[in-house]
Every structure is written in structure tokens, then in C-alpha cells.
């Protein structure tokens, strides 16, 4: 895939985003506010995800490991 069409595609996506969220109609300072808010939310969500998802995954992994492997010994304690 060549770089130019990729760039055009990204620009097009951005346009669609602007049209759907109506930021197309906003004044520059409103846009700034809107994007700041959106980006902050996005960053916060991804940071939260980054912090918690690995922990959850490893817990789940442990759980299934216990469930399949060492069932008699630890199943009860994991459920608790």
C-alpha cells in the first residue's frame, strides 16, 4: 500500500469523524476543547486498560490453570 493513498484515507476518516461528531461546524476554540476532551478521555482509558488488563488476564489465566490442572487443591480458594 502506498503512502499517499494511506494519507488520503486517514484524512477521509478524519473528515467522517468531524461530520459525525459535528466538530465540522465548530469554531476553532470549540474544536480545541472538544479534541482536548476526547484525547484526554482516550488517553485515560488506554492507560487504565494498560494498567488493569494485564493483571486481569493473568488472574484469569491462573484461574483456568487451576481449574484444569490442580483442581482438587486450589479450585475452592480461587473461587473464593
Amino acid at each position, binding site marked *: 500500500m502506498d503512502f499517499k493513498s494511506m494519507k488520503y484515507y486517514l484524512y477521509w476518516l478524519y473528515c467522517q469523524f468531524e461530520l459525525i461528531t459535528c466538530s465540522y461546524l465548530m469554531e476553532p476554540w*470549540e474544536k480545541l476543547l472538544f479534541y482536548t476532551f476526547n484525547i484526554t478521555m482516550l488517553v485515560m482509558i488506554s492507560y487504565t486498560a494498560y494498567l488493569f488488563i494485564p493483571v486481569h488476564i493473568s488472574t484469569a489465566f491462573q484461574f483456568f490453570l487451576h481449574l484444569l490442572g490442580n483442581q482438587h487443591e486450589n479450585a475452592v480458594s480461587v473461587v473464593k
Partner: protein
Amino acid sequence: MERPGRAALGAQPRANGCGAAHGALRNGFVRGLPGTQINHVVHNGGLYKRPFNEAFEETPMLVAVLTYVGYGVLTLFGYLRDFMRQWKIEKCQNAIEREEQKDFVPLYQDFENFYTRNLYMRIRDSWNRPICSVPGAKVDMMERVSHDYNWTFTYTGKVIKGIINMGSYNYLGFAQNNGTCQQAAAKVLSQYGAGVCSSRQEMGNLDKHEELEKLVARFLGVESAMAYGMGFATNSMNIPALVGKGCLILSDELNHASLVLGARLSGATIRIFKHNNMQSLEKLLKDAIVHGQPRTRRPWKKILILVEGIYSMEGSIVRLPEVIALKKKYKSYLYLDEAHSIGALGPNGRGVVDYFGLNPEDVDVMMGTFTKSFGAAGGYIGGKKELIDYLRTYSHSAVYATSLSPPVVEQIITSMKCIMGEDGTTFGKECVQQLAENTRYFRRRLKEMGFIIYGNEDSPVVPLMLYMPAKIGAFGREMLKRNIGVVVVGFPATPIIESRARFCLSAAHTKEMLDTALKEINEVGDLLQLKYSRHRLVPLLDRPFDETTYEETED
């Protein structure tokens, strides 16, 4: 829940079924078997002499959700801006109450004002564009810019020339500043002057008016007709003369403001039926006859059905054969507003009655305007001689309004004669055919491109659905950039999520113009992702219909 019951009803042979050939055929509709969902296999049965293809595609769910998201964002920002204006953080440019009015009822707090201030203002540049030439097939527009986000506009002094005009109600192309109509009007202007400042009942009655009324009556195929100086007033002043207290008006939910105003002024009880929905109309008629007036239970004095020929926002054509059948069955009166359909529909350009091949006598009051197809101004009412004689004496717009200006009358006479072929040419007939052809072509092409198009396939009003608020502005601007003038419509003229662009075709549009317009529309459609169509059509009758929505205005 509603439908199976109705289907069962329809399947029983009924004594007074209107035009029922056998049990399953009522109102010319072939019904499904009792107990099954009716899917309108045929919706142009017995009563229709021609195919009646009218469909409204459902709004795709995703589009509806995204539209609400857009409005949500704009509303939030609207509140923010209102807050800032109130605390003087931002200069307040909209209308506010004066200091001494502050303690009274707030004037600018309702939703429509909020909408105008915070949403409409952002896309206002797509409306009210000043033009500086005759609005024919092409039009010149004055360029304007706004430096304060549409609160004020300044003219750059430049003129954008040769914009393809897809927005005028110039159905037959009579909006011209040269040609026979113009010459005739100019001649009459020098002969009669611009007008007699008096009403028809006093000194304003000229021979031209009588000539016009005779011609209109002949054109419509009715006994007698009367012309007025303003289409809007024709509706709003004549309905009160026809019905009053103790009468019932059944009005289509999408009727024009003039009909609504007339109905309200009359003081009659108004009940509203679902747009073009004959079940809904029949139910109201039946209820009206069974129950009579509320409380007293006396029968209604008169029942008047108000419908339009072509609905200018939906592009739909009234189901006239069925309305007439219902009207006859329940012995009510029918008032048909042909503002958009006169000239634009039918093989002879004589409106919906001609389109369906019906008898004009079956319509009690034929109303229409000269504003659209004839390129003039004013309105008419046609019907039985007694009706018109009555209106001549009792209608407010006959008694109080100044009479039509003679050059305008001449424009109407010349263009109407042209449509009737009485000027010795076939030009009028060709225009009517050209319009029908343009309509079919334009609609077909737009459908193929995948846009959601509303309305009847023969209606020259073509609404193209835009839905999202940002796309209203973007569509208007992008089309203007490409030298095409379009009309975009949003709230409050339409439901809030059903914003649309409305094209009005004209016989003056050539194939090249339409092709150029279609090419640009296609391009803009791709750019803005407007091709929503899934080709899942819902015939109008299958649109959700709940019985409890009609309001009663009783005092």
C-alpha cells in the same frame, strides 16, 4: 397487534365496503390472509389506473444513532455557549429580552430558540442565499462571506454566475424574463398599470380577472373558479369560510402551514391522520360518524378532509383514488391543495386529478397556487358554481384583499394557455412531458447511486436524506462550490433526525444540466458518505401507525 385484526376484517365480505370487489379487496388493496402480516404485495389495485410506486426507506439504525450523537454534541456545546453568554464571557449576538422585560415570561428559552441560536446559526450560510438573476434553470448568486461564524454576512461584490438551480419550484420552466409570457405581461402592464388598489368586490374587478377565472375553470374541468392574490391566504382565509364550529376537519399530518392555519382559524375540531395513510383516515372517519361530536353526541355538521396533491417535503403524492372512495363512502367533503401538483403532474399538466385519471367533480374544493408551475403569484379555488358564488361573498380574501395585479394575471393566462395548447404550439405539452421525463431520470439515477430518496417516483420534488446536522451544512456548501444551488431542509420543517436536501426538477433543466448535477451529487455523496440506502423499502402504509397520536382541539 393492529394489523392482524384489520386483515381479518378486510377478509370478511362487508356490506358497505367501498369499491370492494370481493372480501380480500378493500380500497383497492389486496390484503393478506387473516392472521398473517400484510406485506402489501400489490398496492395499486382496483382503484388505480396507473402504478403507484411510493416508498420510504427506513432510517438505518446506525445512522439514526450517529445523528443523535451529533445533535448531542451540538446541544452540549450549545449549553456551554449559552452559559458563556449569560456570564458575559462571550459577546451575546442573539436577541435577548430588554432590561425592563427581564421579570416577565422568558421569550427566548424554548427549544426552537435554542436550536436557532446554537445549531442553525452554524449552518445558516446554506439558507437565504441572495440571487441576482431570474431563477430559471440557471441562476446567478451573490457571493457573501461571514467573518463572525454566520452571525453577519458581508458581500464580496462578486457574482457567482451560472449556478444550476435545483431549488426553485419552477416545474414547467415559466420563470423567465423573456419569451411570450414576458411580452404579454409587459403589454398588459402598459395597458392596465401595476394594479388597482382595491378589492374584487369594490373597484378591483377587471376583465382580466374574469378571463382568468373562466380559463382556470376550463383548465381544471370544474364549473367555476375564483382567483386570489396570494396562495397562502387562499387556504387560510377560505377554510374558515367553508367550515366552522361543529364541523370536523381531518387533516394530513404533513399539511402545509397555510392549511393548518386555515383549519385552526375556522374553529372547527381538527383531527390529524397519518401521512397518506388511508387506514388512519378511515378510522377517523368511522369514529367521527359513529360517535359524533364529543359530549353532545350530535352528528358533525360537515366533515372536511384536507389533503395536498404533492407534499413538498416528502415528495409523496396523495392517494387520491382512495381518498375519494372514502369520501364518497362516508359522505364527507374533500379539499385538495394542488399547490405543487398543478402543472407538474398528469399527462396534460392538470394536477393529481389528471394524473390518476379521475373526475374533477369528485373533488369538492380544488385549491392551487400560481406561484409554482405558472411562474406567477396567487392562488385559486375551483369547484361547483354554488361553492364559488358562496366564497365570492363570504371569503375574507375576496372581501378584503386587493385584487391580483394585471401583469401577473396575464402571466398566468399566457402560461396556462400554453400548457393547454391554446397558443397554437405544442410547447406546453412538451414541457409537461419533459418534466415527467426529467423526474423519472433524476430519481432513477439517484436511487442507483444508493441515496435514500423519499416519495413517489413521479413526483418532481426529490428529497435526498442527509440525516446528520453537519452534513446539512457540508452538503449545501460543497454543492455551491461545485456550482449547483440546492435547498437543504432541517428542523423545524422536518423531524429532527430526518434532515434532507430537496431537489425540485424543472422542464427547463436539460439533460446535460441534470448529468452535471448528478455527477457532482455523486461526488459529494461519496465525500460525505451519504449513500445510506440498503434498498429496504417500506411502503408508506407499513410505517408504524399508532392510533393515539391525533390531537383534539376542543373547547
